[in-house]
């Protein structure tokens, strides 16, 4: 608690506290200013932050560059969608099944992919993600390429997810839970093994750690949280489609983590906000400069990323001052 208070006096602490406060009050703010469409962007930011936090557990802390993380959007989302298409609308069934599916799938993919290193790991995770993508687009019964409209999960008597503010707050609570877990995870014995293996795998083995098992566990945990984000994403749009797990989304997640700061607790949150804000704000700004330029916002966004990679290695997080841990 004392740490929490003293960290509130640093620029990072103040910025983070402000962001979390604004996010916590977002439904009230958007209502007060009558900008309800902002709430839907806010919801997506929060859901993507959960996914980014989960990818950061292996990519940031573990140095395992998975280029297929969006497949867990797909597994989580399709589990909910398929159950919903068969008339199972209860979240009490949908969500555990979807989480279980994402966890099992992550364990399987991890067991196979983690036998490779470096570039091969990137390629094999991408390959598995593409596999899931094409399975999704081949599922004609569930809309194939076009996707499928579903209804939001029902939690009778507990919460009505059709209410946008309710749904948002649930997502926000789950984001807070993910951040809490990630904080514990990163400083636990387990997390130190994962971080140590990023720094020097051979050393960790010589210290008596079976690194593969720890990485597999980390990959599985990361996949489970990724699946959670998938469940929420399917509910947010009341829609599933293969597009939610295209390789572009996996790339976006990596970009978000690099942008926000790899291996930092709040980096994924900063990164997601920056990514969405730039995505929303750059087109109109460019359109102001010249009508029609907005379509090419990536031309500005790309070089921005290059600059971050070159001059701000630690991403946005490093701009907020030195870290103490």
């Amino acid at each position, binding site marked *: 608690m004392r740490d929490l208070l003293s960290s509130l006096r640093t620029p990072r602490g103040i910025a983070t506290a402000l962001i979390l406060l604004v996010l916590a009050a977002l439904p009230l703010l958007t209502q007060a200013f009558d900008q309800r469409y902002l709430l839907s962007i806010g919801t997506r930011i929060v859901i993507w932050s959960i996914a980014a936090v989960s990818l950061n557990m292996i990519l940031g802390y573990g140095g395992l560059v998975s280029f297929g993380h969006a497949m867990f959007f797909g597994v989580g989302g399709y589990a909910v969608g398929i159950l919903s298409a068969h008339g199972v609308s209860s979240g009490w069934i949908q969500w555990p099944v979807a989480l279980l599916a994402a966890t099992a799938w992550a364990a399987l993919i991890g067991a196979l992919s983690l036998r490779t290193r470096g570039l091969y790991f990137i390629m094999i995770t991408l390959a598995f993600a593409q596999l899931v993508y094409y399975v999704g687009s081949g599922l004609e019964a569930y809309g194939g390429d076009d996707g499928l409209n579903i209804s939001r999960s029902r939690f009778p008597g507990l919460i009505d997810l059709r209410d946008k503010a309710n749904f948002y707050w649930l997502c926000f609570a789950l984001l807070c839970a993910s951040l809490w*877990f990630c904080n*514990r*995870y990163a*400083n*636990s*014995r*387990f*997390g*130190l*093994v994962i*971080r*140590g293996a990023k*720094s*020097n795998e*051979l*050393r*960790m*083995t*010589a*210290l*008596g*750690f*079976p*690194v593969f098992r*720890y990485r597999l*566990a980390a990959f599985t945990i990361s996949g489970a949280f990724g699946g959670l984000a998938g469940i929420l994403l399917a509910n947010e749009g009341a829609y599933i489609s293969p597009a939610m797990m295209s390789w572009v989304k996996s790339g976006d997640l990596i970009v978000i983590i690099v942008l926000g700061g790899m291996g930092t607790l709040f980096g994924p949150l900063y990164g997601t906000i920056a990514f969405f804000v730039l995505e929303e704000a750059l087109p109109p700004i460019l359109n102001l400069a010249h009508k029609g330029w907005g379509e090419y916002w990536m031309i500005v966004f790309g070089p921005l990323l290059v600059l971050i990679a070159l001059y701000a290695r630690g991403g946005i997080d490093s701009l907020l001052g030195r870290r103490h*841990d």
Partner: protein
Amino acid sequence: MTEPLLHTERLVKRYGGLIATDNVSIDVRPGEIHALIGPNGAGKTTLVHQLTGVVAPDSGTIHFAGQDITRLPTHARVRLGLGRSFQITSVLREFTALENVALAVQGHAGHSFRFLADARRDESLRGPARGLLDGVGLGGRAGILAASLSHGEQRQLEIAMALAGNPTLLLLDEPMAGMGVEESQRLIGFLRALKQKHAMLLIEHDMDAVFQLADRITVLVYGRAIASGTPDQIRANAEVRQAYLGEETA
């Protein structure tokens, strides 16, 4: 004679046509320092890799603490009490000296599938880690990032990490490499004090250190152990003088 702690029986390792380890049988007894010397390319590193489980021998066996460990993975050998330091300094550069050793302690403290408790405040890890750092003379440098330590300090840190599991046998791969004379002398004194509790297999180029420390020496040339004996026997061995010590004792 006491039962050897480590014992290899006719180890063979081939790389294509090259025999890197040629029928090597060596042993290390409790309480002794056994040095392994040989010119570059003699197969010392390959032998170390087989002992630690990085590569598997083509034939032959390795016994450690009364158990056949020939096919055991590295981490399991470490758990049995086979500690090692690396030829090329291998510490976790982004971690402080204390965190490095605390992780080494953690490696011997059962499994690490603990997700919630803060390991960075775990006195059951940090306490012993501090003791080990004091032991190698790094007590005052506990909070420094390993990357910022001097080369000699990193070597000391390596040894503190290797000692974390209280290994019965320490495999030291060129611990003096790149050290100044003074640092080497300090390390020699330190290792000598350790040998009652931890037997050592010492691979070292620094002949002064080898002859000061070793109880027995084995000379490896082209993968073969051409001689084995006390430092005096090795010094007097004509074949060794010709093959290896020539320049240094002439």
